[in-house]
């Protein structure tokens, strides 16, 4: 069953610099995407690919200079187009229907508020219960996130916690109202590898237990491989390839996906030579014509530099934007 459907989403940033007074950055440029219930979808790509902008467009937490120019985001549980909802409606959805885990937990925790109060705040706001009841539930949530000694930690301030513990507090807050959808933006990038593995496993377990859908944003293909069912590879605001995680990792079609997989660090690789993808992600204010990837593509033909390839369906349920498949 479908939980969320994004159609032709376009989110642009208006940049004002001294040299160029009005510059448009097409961070997300015509993305169609569907997310099923209980499905874990990985949004992968390098910096500037628009993955974070896409996710924050869903919850409408964009910076002031961002404009959603076109598209619709249908969220089935509330039966509304999120892009047409006003701020007070969005507030009821954010944190209640859609939980969010941010990249850097310290920035999103109030440094002057005890852990238990931060979690309880969201419960009181969304579920209209007493503070006392909310605090009790907050401690239960800490237990659910496998926080060591939840009763002691509850009365700590964020600076007294380690990076992993802070992320557990964020997770506890995100799941406090049993959301239908959990958006996790680079949830483990700031953490050590040992803590990363624990946090990812926790997210995966909670997703299964609470029956949530998961939208995971990451630059690390290894992270997506480990917890996602489906993967969307983004490049410069557009979808390059989308499909089942096994299909994509075993048999990537788009040259960008192939390249990304080749350069993703792994302990298994035995050949000594280091593979590379030439070039760098394009300048968002000055995107290449035709297929945006063509300047870096080893298979680029003349057509690629002129006409943009459409996102085509492939036999195994995949979608690929490349002239090689069309």
């Amino acid at each position: 069953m479908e939980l969320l459907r994004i159609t032709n989403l376009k989110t642009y940033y208006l940049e004002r610099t001294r040299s160029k007074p009005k510059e448009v950055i097409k961070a997300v440029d015509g993305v169609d995407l569907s997310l099923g219930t209980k499905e874990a979808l990985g949004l992968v790509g390098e910096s500037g690919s628009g993955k974070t902008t896409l996710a924050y467009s869903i919850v409408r937490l964009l910076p002031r200079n961002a404009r959603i120019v076109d598209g619709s985001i249908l969220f089935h549980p509330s039966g509304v187009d999120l892009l047409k909802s006003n701020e007070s409606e969005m507030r009821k959805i954010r944190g209640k229907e859609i939980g969010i885990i941010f990249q850097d937990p310290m920035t999103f925790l109030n440094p002057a508020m005890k852990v238990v109060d931060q979690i309880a705040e969201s419960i009181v706001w969304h579920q209209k219960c007493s503070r006392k009841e909310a605090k009790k539930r907050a401690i239960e949530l800490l237990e659910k996130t496998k926080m060591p000694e939840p009763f002691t930690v509850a009365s700590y301030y964020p600076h007294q916690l380690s990076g992993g513990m802070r992320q557990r507090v964020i997770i506890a807050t995100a799941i406090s109202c049993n959301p239908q959808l959990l958006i996790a933006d680079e949830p483990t990038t700031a953490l050590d590898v040992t803590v990363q593995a624990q946090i990812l496993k926790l997210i995966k377990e909670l997703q299964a237990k609470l029956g949530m859908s998961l939208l995971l944003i990451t630059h690390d293909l290894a992270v997506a491989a480990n917890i996602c069912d489906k993967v969307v590879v983004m490049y410069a605001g557009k979808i390059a390839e989308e499909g089942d995680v096994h299909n994509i990792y075993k048999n990537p079609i788009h040259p960008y996906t192939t390249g990304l997989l080749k350069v993703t660090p792994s302990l298994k690789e035995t050949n000594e030579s280091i593979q590379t993808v030439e070039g760098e992600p394009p300048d968002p204010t000055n995107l290449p014509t035709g297929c945006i990837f063509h300047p870096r593509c080893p298979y680029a033909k003349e057509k690629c530099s002129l006409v943009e390839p459409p996102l085509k369906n492939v036999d195994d349920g995949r979608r690929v934007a490349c002239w090689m498949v069309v």
Partner: protein
Amino acid sequence: MSNQTLIQIRDLRKYFPVGTEIFRRSRRFVKAVDGVSFNIPRQESFGLTGESGSGKTTLARLIIKLIEPTSGSVYLNGQNIYELNEKQMRLLRRQMQMIFQDPLSSLNPRKTTKQTLEQPFKLHASLSKEQVENEVARLLEIVGLAPPEIFLGRFPHELSGGQRQRVCIARAISLRPIFLIADEFVSALDVSVRAQIIKLLKKLQAEFRMTYLIITHDIALIKSMCSNFSVMYLGRFLEVGDASKITKSPLHPYTRMLLSAVLEPDPDVAKIRTHMLYGDVPSPINPPSGCNFHPRCPYVTEKCKTTHPPPTEVDGRIVSCHLYADA
């Protein structure tokens, strides 16, 4: 010391005092580096890994004498770098260089690429203006910023992350160092750029016969670049040895734990293994007694809680663990 060794480190320690009690000497210390000894052979890469707070960066700063140690010595070509006079020190600065994690903060935002790269020559070499210009252009070509004219006049903010790191590398190799420390040099870069920079450093190493110390939390990077590496935890080395041996069959429980946490980009083997993982790095101000690692160790015994395990040679590696010390 054999001729094959470039860097030799003997029982190096750095204790930082904590607490700001005026009129009273602080009695508490953070033992950032606590008795570390190892050698780096010429023209090889030595890796240094560990979780944050393990003392990797402090060790690097000690080795290039950015800070003075509490005790211990570092020999470069058989010469103790802490006993050099000023003149010898100037030569040492040319021989040892470092590249950092965040290229944006290690470049002067108000200097163009040209100005940044001219600086080392102005300080250390007596070259004519023309010669310096030629050298700078050549450096840019070596690090893959071609044609140089495009990049010479740019400021750091006008460069991409990968280009910035290339400028930092060009600056580091400008005076032909024999030893280069790279501290998390690809952590801030995108994966596609990361591979290019790794390849560049490997190429430069062969071309200029440099010796590297690679500091990273990424064991896959160590495996692709280093012949030997060490695993550091709270200022001590827990396991040191051949990179392919350690990654294939780690001995120390902590090394096993670190390796088990590395995720593979393969959904078929995808299984997050957390049975080995427990807890966070403890506070370095008040480290656990005995073996530092014992509160997180699945094989902990009574002995581990009281005595620090001596370094023991096992299978060509040096391991500090009671599991192997007794055998």
